[in-house]
């Protein structure tokens, strides 16, 4: 290749410097293209998994049945899915639920930008930001790594069916409540995905986790949740020892059609609260009126075991029998989400405490307008319902939580 030996040293000498020049060019172009593709971090979660075939598994479930249904679901999974599904039973995992879409927890979407690992949405930060503000502010912040468990976007039709059988086994069979309500929640999130919410929403963004191993001895929790939904059934030695915290929010709040289903969950809840409030006379209504305003519920995710020491509002002993029935009916729109046997047992307990259960509200008695808020606060039961401004759609939408002062997380406090 070299024509003469004397030329060789000269040629060779040129190379390194030329190499440096080329290096500049190479780095320029390669880095430029990597920047262009920077913002495609959002995971594409398909929302096309099997739609709920409203499978009518309405078996009233004792715990043994639940374990069997849980094992039947596990049997459909591959090893990676099982690994994701099976988590440790710990308060940290149990308390790691949210009303947010998961992408908003992990930073993949919503506000924009990526939040890699830590609580630092560095992707959302302009490059001028040199010092990293440490962590987030605010109490109740538990995690920014998102939900634990198996994400539903990985489920095949068969696996979805097995999951639905499990959920049906632990939930109530009434129309628009329990299992039907969950199916409508999934539809509602598909509706958000189709109407401006994008890939962060939809039935593929829900998570199912077994905290501990399903068994008739020891403690385990069935956790199922996603945007606006948290189911938390904790079983101790074969008994449902805690069915809360149970979160139900919904957007859209108005009736829509999605995937061929009519979607209107939580309307019965609002109607039940309104029926109770409108049954009150003006003196009772005054006593029930809160002076404070609410733009959300008080005891959302992260605010565990933080029940007020003083109950506010109108106490149940001041209610007529008819009004007590309306109060119990309102409570039952949450308790009734459980399988029929569990619901009956817990409702009977709440009924026995009605005289010392308080009703407090603010806003209108319709419970459909932004700022409307109602709370049911008994020795055991704690239910909050708050109408707030729309996120994906315009118009008010509710957040609601059912907690139990004794049996949240089956009594696990830390």
């Amino acid at each position, binding site marked *: 290749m070299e024509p003469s030996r004397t030329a*060789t*040293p*000269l040629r*060779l*000498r*040129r*190379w390194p*410097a*030329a*190499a*440096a*020049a*080329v*290096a*500049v060019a*190479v*780095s*320029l*172009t390669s*880095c*430029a293209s990597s*920047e262009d593709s920077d913002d495609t971090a959002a995971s594409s979660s398909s929302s096309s998994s099997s739609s709920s075939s409203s499978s009518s598994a309405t078996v009233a479930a004792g715990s043994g049945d639940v374990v069997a249904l849980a094992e039947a679901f596990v049997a459909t999974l591959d090893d990676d899915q099982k690994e994701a599904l099976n988590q440790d039973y710990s308060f940290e995992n149990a308390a790691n639920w*949210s*009303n*947010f879409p998961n992408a*908003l*927890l992990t*930073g993949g979407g919503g*506000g924009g930008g990526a939040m890699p690992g830590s609580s630092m*949405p560095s992707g*959302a*930060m*302009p490059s*001028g930001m*040199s*010092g990293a*503000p440490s962590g*987030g*502010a*605010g*109490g*109740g912040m538990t*995690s*920014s790594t998102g939900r634990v468990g198996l994400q539903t976007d990985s489920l095949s039709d068969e696996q979805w069916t097995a999951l639905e059988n499990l959920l049906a086994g632990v939930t109530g069979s009434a129309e628009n409540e329990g299992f039907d309500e969950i199916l409508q929640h999934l539809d509602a999130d598909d509706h958000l995905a189709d109407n401006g919410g994008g890939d962060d929403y939809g039935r593929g963004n829900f998570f199912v986790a077994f905290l501990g191993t399903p068994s008739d001895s020891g403690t385990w929790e069935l956790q199922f949740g996603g945007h606006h939904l948290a189911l938390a059934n904790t079983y101790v030695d074969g008994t449902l020892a805690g069915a809360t915290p149970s979160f139900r929010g919904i957007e859209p709040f108005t009736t829509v059609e999605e995937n061929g289903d009519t979607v209107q969950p939580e309307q019965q809840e609002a109607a039940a609260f309104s029926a109770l409030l409108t049954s009150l006379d003006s003196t009772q209504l005054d006593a029930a009126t809160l002076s*404070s*305003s*609410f*733009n*959300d*519920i*008080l005891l*959302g995710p992260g605010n565990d075991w*933080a*029940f*007020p020491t*003083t109950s506010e509002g109108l106490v149940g002993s001041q209610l007529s029998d008819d009004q007590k029935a309306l109060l119990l009916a309102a409570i039952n729109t949450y308790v009734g989400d459980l399988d029929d046997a569990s619901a009956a047992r817990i409702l009977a307990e709440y009924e026995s405490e009605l005289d010392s259960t308080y009703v407090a509200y603010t806003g209108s008695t319709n419970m459909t307008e932004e*700022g409307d808020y109602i709370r049911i606060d008994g020795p055991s039961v704690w239910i909050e319902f*708050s109408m707030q*401004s729309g*996120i994906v759609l315009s118009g008010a939408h509710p957040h609601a939580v059912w907690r139990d002062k004794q049996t949240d997380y089956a009594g696990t406090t830390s």
Partner: protein
Amino acid sequence: MRHSHRVGITAAVVGAVAVLTASPASAHVVPSTVVELDVHADDITAALTLPADDLATASGIDVAGGGTLADDTRVAVVDYLEDHVTVTSDGGTWQVGIDDVDSTETEQWGTGEFPAVTATATLTPPDGADLRTFTLDYDAIVHQVVTADIFVVLRSDWAAGQVESARSLGAIELDTVSGTVSPLTVDLDDGGPWQGFVGMLRLGTSHIAEGTDHQLFLLTLLLPAPLLAARRRWAQVAPTGRAVRRIAAVTIAFTIGHSVTLALGTLGLPVPQQPVEALIAVSILIAAAHALRPLFPGREPVVAGLFGLVHGMAFSATLSALDLSGEQLALSLLGFNLGIELMQLAVVLVVLPPLVVLARTRAYQPLRTGAAVLTAVAALGWLLDRVGLTTPLGSAADVLGPASPWVVLALWLAALLTLARSRGLPPAAATDPCAPRAAGPTTAEAQRVSSAPERTGS
């Protein structure tokens, strides 16, 4: 591109707010109040951002939905905020002044855009009292809207050396168990003139380290420093001593130039931001042209000094954005400038030695040409960007910064290899074209470059 730092700081704060209000698992997609503190020498200013709808609910003042605020509305907001912001410390009760009430649209983590009311609270401790430890008794909105969150952020604290990064000081919110809202105790890190000075020194170094455009101007101007011009071409290699003197002269002239305008700008000389940023791009373009063909041989220091004046104006924007005065201003000017000089000196010391060595090889001509052309393209991209024409060139040029350590490494390896060869290495190493070289190009690429026509004028 490297934005002007005033923009940079504003953007950083927006970023900080996004971080601090994220509070993921607590799951408020509901807008929150943000209180951003700037700690000055004698007082603290708090930039308040309040969700308009919550403010309307809590105060009864008609600010819901945003929009321009009428004068009496502003007055009502001032009165309301003065009733709900109290600051105390061991020194006594502080004076709280509210002004700059305005409305805006803003966005926080997961909230979407929402109307907000902004205001500035000036918090002044009693004469001579310490301002680094105090109790912020702030309950605007949350006294009524009990689910509201108030995030308190330390945006800048000169005396602690913190001027460009925000950090959370905590949140003010309802304790649901007791139903009370507790004031926030703020205990700032110890600070003083020395920490402040060091903070500004750091700011100066990072400003140059991240300011690819400033580095590129100086380096490109120095690219032909080891060469002599003849017949309107860069021809012979200058004696090393002369090259070093020229490098020193250019660097010192640039330093004098930008120091003058940095001081003037910081002290109040108005700086037209956009024209200055555009002129900086022009200065790089001219330096690149000069590196290709001598335009002003021997007068590089003059050019460096003149354009130094322009670069200094851009530097001053960083300091004037901090709104400093008195002793802090003087120490900032000194520290920031010193930081700039130190980093600039480091860059020159790191990049120039290999260039002086490589200037003696035939490779310097393609290297110089390649670097100059690349720089010119980058400068053109910045220029277009800064006059408002966004092109891919601008963002491509921005990656020169991150790439620069590798380029420097390549230069040093090449220079060391050149030195080693000139001292005669064993033949095996000398004839093996695949011997370890600088990272990056393949042998084929290197060969392609090496087979380019011989340079002229040697």
